[in-house]
């Protein structure tokens, strides 16, 4: 059915009016969620994901502790109403388990786990709406939630999806496009420009793959700028609010003592 819709028309527009390299609107929301140590909501177009981070904290199960670093636990929930066909996925669904394990192994080397021996960091991912690029949204939201929780990270991890339509590469696919096109999700660490995650499940020629990989790497940089701006804005907001409260001489003195 979807093949009836033109993916990329002669004028160079996609089905939702975007150009080939145009990303959808991104919304990064770092407002606090009561109870969580850090949380973030991310939307790429109509795809929407919320992530809460708890920890580092005492491990719930002692058998899960690792003597020299923190254990990372990722749980993914996909809301039944997130797709067109309302379907409840069980917790043991292999696809969801793989998804969680992908997020876990992506962040394991990025979080400085060695600073927190025997602790646990819980990452709860909730997919609220799906319209393509779910993995990309989950990775970006997890990065922001971890930054929000003050968990030390080596770098941001910024993910984006790329696809190819008849030799024409495009970025940030919707579900409609994902169903029809081979697509790759790439996550980059912007400081070094290296890719930490590459995930592809559809058939694609090696030469096309190369093109997309490079393109997605660049797009990751663009997303990074946006994410960084949001983190900075939030940090600045908190610093300003705290600065406003500092006026009693008594406190200032104490703050100096504490800082030195």
């Amino acid at each position, binding site marked *: 059915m979807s093949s009836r819709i033109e993916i990329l028309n002669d004028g160079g527009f996609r089905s939702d009016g975007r150009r080939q390299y145009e990303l959808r609107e991104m919304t990064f929301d770092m407002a606090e969620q009561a109870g969580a140590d850090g949380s973030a909501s991310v939307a790429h177009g109509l795809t929407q994901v919320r992530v809460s981070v708890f920890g580092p904290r005492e491990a719930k199960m002692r058998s899960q502790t690792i003597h020299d670093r923190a254990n990372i636990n990722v749980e993914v929930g996909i809301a039944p109403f997130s797709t067109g066909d309302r379907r409840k996925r069980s917790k*043991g669904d*292999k*696809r969801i*388990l*793989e998804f969680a*394990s*992908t997020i*876990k*192994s*992506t*962040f*394991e*080397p*990025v979080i400085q786990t*060695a600073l927190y021996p025997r602790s646990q960091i819980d990452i709860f991912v909730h997919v609220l709406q799906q319209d393509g690029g779910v993995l990309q949204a989950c990775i970006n939201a997890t990065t922001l939630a971890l930054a929000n929780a003050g968990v030390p990270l*080596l*770098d941001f991890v910024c993910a984006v999806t790329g696809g190819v339509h008849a030799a024409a590469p495009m970025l940030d696919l919707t579900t409609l496009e994902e169903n029809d096109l081979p697509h*790759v999700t790439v996550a980059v*660490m912007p*400081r*070094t*420009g*290296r*890719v*930490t*995650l*590459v*995930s*592809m*499940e*559809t*058939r*694609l*020629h*090696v*030469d096309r*793959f*190369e093109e997309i*990989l*490079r393109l997605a*790497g660049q797009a990751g940089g663009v997303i990074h700028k946006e994410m960084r701006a949001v983190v900075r804005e939030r940090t600045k907001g908190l610093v300003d609010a705290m600065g406003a409260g500092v006026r009693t001489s008594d406190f200032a003195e104490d703050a100096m003592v504490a800082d030195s």
Partner: protein
Amino acid sequence: MRPPSPSIPEKEFLFSTLEKSLRLDGRGLIEMRPLELTFGEELGHVDCTLGKTRVLAQVDAKMVRPLPERPFEGIISVHSEISPMASPEYESTGRPSDEEVALSRMLDKVIRRSDAVDREALCILAGQRVWHLRLTIHCLSDAGNLLDCACMAGMVALRHFRRPDVEVIGDEVTVHPPSSRAPVPLSLHHTPFSLTFALFAPSSSHTNISSQTAPITLLDPSLLEQRLASGTLSLALNAQRELCVVHKAGGVPLTPEEVLSAVNIAVQKAKELEKMVDARVREDWAMKKIEVR
């Protein structure tokens, strides 16, 4: 009781040898362990060994009613399970282990999502009768890189398998036993091979993963290499230079060039594997004298 993680001397020795581009079993960095395929009595039964890693794959087909939403397509199902017999690493607990999830998802992607088998060719009578192929993967022993071995076994089993010939006259389906008409091979679009690279962070500081120098990449990791690696890159591709699966989650970050160079190595390996698998399957078919006429 799970065996403990490798000791410090093992870890340090492995890292020091890798810096010198040596491997403990004498292989080159991008050399695979010898692959051996042993075919069973029946068609579609293969025992695949990669060094000491061993996987048994078996295919059978039966006639079923197609799924209502796909009346013109046959059904393919893949069953895989890592039992504790493969290695003391695996325990039989309720929830599937990470390895098990990774394996069954990889098999699903390599065999089903990549469209390896022509499903429409499995249709006998539209909406009425189709072939249901069942591929069962038994992991007998894990000495490292079980993933590639299992995918290889599964694909070879599908290549080796032949289904009985059928004849459709009107609404009547006649199945010819192998004794009267030679069974027909499955129609495969392509044969993807899974190739896994283990990645090791360069230099002695293994905590610092974002260093500038290139990481050490090696193909077909052994058990020890796999356990000590800081990340893996799994590719599945066919001899026609088409990638079907790329899976790299975390681990050492790579530059796009490093990813592509691994892909290029894999392209070469896939071509060699294709040649070898093709020859072995034909050889076995010839030996079994399947053709009746």
